């Protein structure tokens, strides 16, 4: 292979897309490292503090597409203070300064400002695609700059962001010459939408495949949009409507009938059930259906719709569908690969008879042979059910089970769920992601350490008895990358047993566990290549550092550690101490 000219090797590398593979290639030899890095266009950075933008640019001069992730996963559940960090601005500044030909930017859990978006929109002439997931810190003004200045924008995808809506005219800011849009998702915007501007934009975007609108787009506007974009593949609906009158309903249904390419449907927040029925003409074509925000649509309506969706591969739904509904899914959706069942009642105020149980899960596992990913919120579980599920579905890659009440045992035997989860990890040899819940002892972690050879991400809450639990996982799971633990009795012994293990992991999160300040300090001393962050909202930096030896025994509320090649970050807020 070394006798080929570089151009030939580079051409061969072009066929290798996956980040993992390209990273492996770059380790083979110096010359391969150089060819690989000079030709690399797409880079994925799972932790924005593991490296800095200058080093990134230096290594990958041909960078076109950058993916960055900021806050740790538990930030989703309000366990990370708002001001923690994850700012994208320094990255955009550096990329702009180095005149990188950036075309794509994908951010998850990062803080984005209007200033950042403005700079982005002015600095990269070929910029095509902006995807923001669970980000915050910007307003519709920032969107206006992107719309106005990115002449080649194809994709603007805003998923679940906190965006301050200035009710401006950002949609009007797309110039008339902008006709390249393929994907537009503004479903998370809370304010009003200029419907005329939206309709004009959609009408002049013949390549538009994905359109997800927000709540402020009513049914008649949706009808008009669908009429001028029958080529849509992916549609997000989101509009309040009482039962629409006969005429509007017929018009909507007619427009939908023409959307023969439609494969993916989502939205439906605050939408009357009748609106769902307008989609009957195309439901047998659907491969993806997200009704997890449709709290208004009751189980029976959902079931009636889903029983026609025979080609469904992905289904996100609320637990109001019930076990009976899941049985219908199991008998209808034989192509199902991914299922997410979210809780509809977060306050436990109502007597929730329709929440799902182990019965629904077993039915799905029996009926859907291609299932590989599941997220399941339920009120109860049994070992027997989990053992059956493991037998039925040995192909799970992602298995996330959340029993709503922490520490809940098997409801038929009152035993822990160690055996059930043990069966899952033993049968599912390809399991990469696992979340456990219910009553669990150290034994479940023994099983995980023993069997979960491919496990990369593990989420633990209210589980285990002693440090041994965490040690089984750290010692056994060779491919572990992200470990996140809350409210479990793991302490310094487990944290410090094998410091080098953290070289092979992206990050570790521990909150409300038994680790102490002294333990964390010791870890930080022994592992200078780690950033060991203590998050304590009740104190500030100075108090922390003045503590005497006594306080070394004080338990740490939240610990977040991650490997990094650039040392302690300089943008940490007062509530974060980097040891």
């Amino acid at each position, binding site marked *: 292979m070394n006798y080929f000219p570089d151009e030939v090797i580079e051409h061969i590398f072009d066929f290798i897309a996956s980040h993992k593979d390209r990273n492996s290639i770059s380790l083979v030899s110096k010359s391969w490292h150089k060819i690989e890095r000079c030709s690399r266009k797409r880079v994925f950075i799972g932790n924005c503090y593991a490296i800095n933008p200058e080093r990134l640019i230096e290594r990958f001069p041909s960078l076109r597409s950058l993916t960055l992730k900021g806050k740790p996963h538990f930030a989703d559940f309000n*366990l990370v203070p708002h001001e923690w960090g994850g700012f994208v601005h320094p990255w955009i500044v550096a990329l702009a300064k180095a005149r990188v030909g950036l075309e794509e930017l994908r951010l998850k859990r990062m803080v984005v400002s209007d200033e950042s978006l403005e700079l982005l929109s002015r600095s990269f002439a070929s910029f095509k695609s902006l995807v923001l997931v669970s980000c915050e810190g910007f307003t519709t003004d920032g969107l206006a700059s992107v719309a106005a200045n990115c002449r080649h924008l194809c994709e603007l995808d805003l998923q679940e962001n906190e965006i301050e809506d200035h009710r401006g005219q950002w949609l009007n800011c797309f110039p008339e010459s902008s006709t390249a849009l393929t994907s537009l998702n503004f479903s998370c915007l809370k304010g009003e939408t200029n419907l005329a501007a939206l309709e004009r934009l959609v009408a002049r975007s013949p390549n538009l495949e994905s359109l997800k609108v927000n709540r402020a787009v009513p049914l008649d506007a949706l009808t008009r949009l669908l009429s001028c974009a029958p080529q849509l593949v992916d549609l997000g609906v989101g509009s309040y409507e009482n039962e629409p009158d006969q005429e509007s309903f017929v018009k909507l249904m007619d427009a939908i009938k023409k959307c023969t390419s439609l494969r993916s449907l989502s939205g439906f927040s605050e939408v009357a059930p009748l609106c769902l029925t307008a989609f009957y003409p195309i439901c047998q074509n659907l491969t993806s259906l997200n009704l997890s925000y449709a709290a208004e649509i009751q189980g029976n309506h959902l079931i009636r719709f889903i029983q026609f969706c025979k080609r469904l591969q992905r289904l996100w739904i609320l637990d109001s569908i019930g076990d009976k509904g899941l049985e219908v899914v199991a008998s209808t959706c034989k192509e199902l690969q991914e299922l997410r069942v979210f*809780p509809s009642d*977060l306050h436990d105020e109502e007597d929730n008879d329709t929440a799902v149980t182990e019965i629904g899960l077993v039915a799905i596992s029996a009926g859907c042979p291609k299932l590989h990913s599941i997220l399941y919120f339920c009120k109860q579980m049994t070992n027997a059910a989990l053992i059956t599920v493991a037998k039925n579905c040995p192909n799970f890659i992602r298995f996330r089970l*959340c029993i709503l009440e922490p520490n809940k045992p098997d409801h038929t035997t009152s035993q822990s769920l160690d055996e059930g989860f043990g069966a899952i990890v033993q049968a599912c040899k390809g399991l990469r992601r696992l979340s456990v819940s219910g009553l669990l002892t150290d*034994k479940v972690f023994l099983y995980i350490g023993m069997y979960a050879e491919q496990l990369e991400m593990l989420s633990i809450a209210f589980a285990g008895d002693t440090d041994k639990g965490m040690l089984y996982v750290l010692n056994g799971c060779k491919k572990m990358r992200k470990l996140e633990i809350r409210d479990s009795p793991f302490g310094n012994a487990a944290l410090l047993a094998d410091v080098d293990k953290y070289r092979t992991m992206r990050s570790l999160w521990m909150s409300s566990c038994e680790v102490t300040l002294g333990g964390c300090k010791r870890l930080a001393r022994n592992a200078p290549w780690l950033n060991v962050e203590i998050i304590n909202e009740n104190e500030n930096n100075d108090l922390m550092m003045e503590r005497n030896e006594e306080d070394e025994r004080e338990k740490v509320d939240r610990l977040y550690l991650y490997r990094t090649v650039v040392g302690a970050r300089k943008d940490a807020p007062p509530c974060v101490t980097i040891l």
Partner: protein
Amino acid sequence: MEKGGLELEITELRLGLPGTEKMMKKRGFTEMIMTSSGSNSNQCESGVVSSGCDVEKANESPVAKSQVVGWPPVCSYRRKNSCKEVSTTRVGLGYVKVSMDGVPYLRKMDLGSSQGYDDLAFALDKLFGFHGIGVALKDGDNCEYVTIYEDKDGDWMLAGDVPWGMFIESCKRLRIMKRSDAAGFGLQPRGVDE
């Protein structure tokens, strides 16, 4: 679950009642919620030590699961945007959803903050910035809109007929509908439940 020849005696599974040694070691959910009001770690320690009595306390006064921060693990965006989070659907208390024909948004209002139908009329006017609604309630036949509500039984009734107290107890949601549409809507006739 035994692998041939492997002795799995590492942990002793004790299935005792709360208050046994096992509960002492593990920082159970019940201890956590008893001490979750402060996030001072000193409190946590005392919680572990006296777990027996804390567990008993928990049994006496059941604490809602939602008091635990970040549990269940549903992301905050989803929490904020799921309808049940946004408004209580309990009949007679708190907020009800109000819709008006032609307006793409739902509004919520607190029925409890109004003293009577006049108050309600005023509040509705303010909510939608439209002066006709109040008139509808007071002087039904002369107005472009009618105000109807869905009661406990799922029936749609004309607002203003029953005594105020009875109204706020049974009203689940409100709708301001065009009079022209109301004719074929299937409103329950007046006086049906008196």
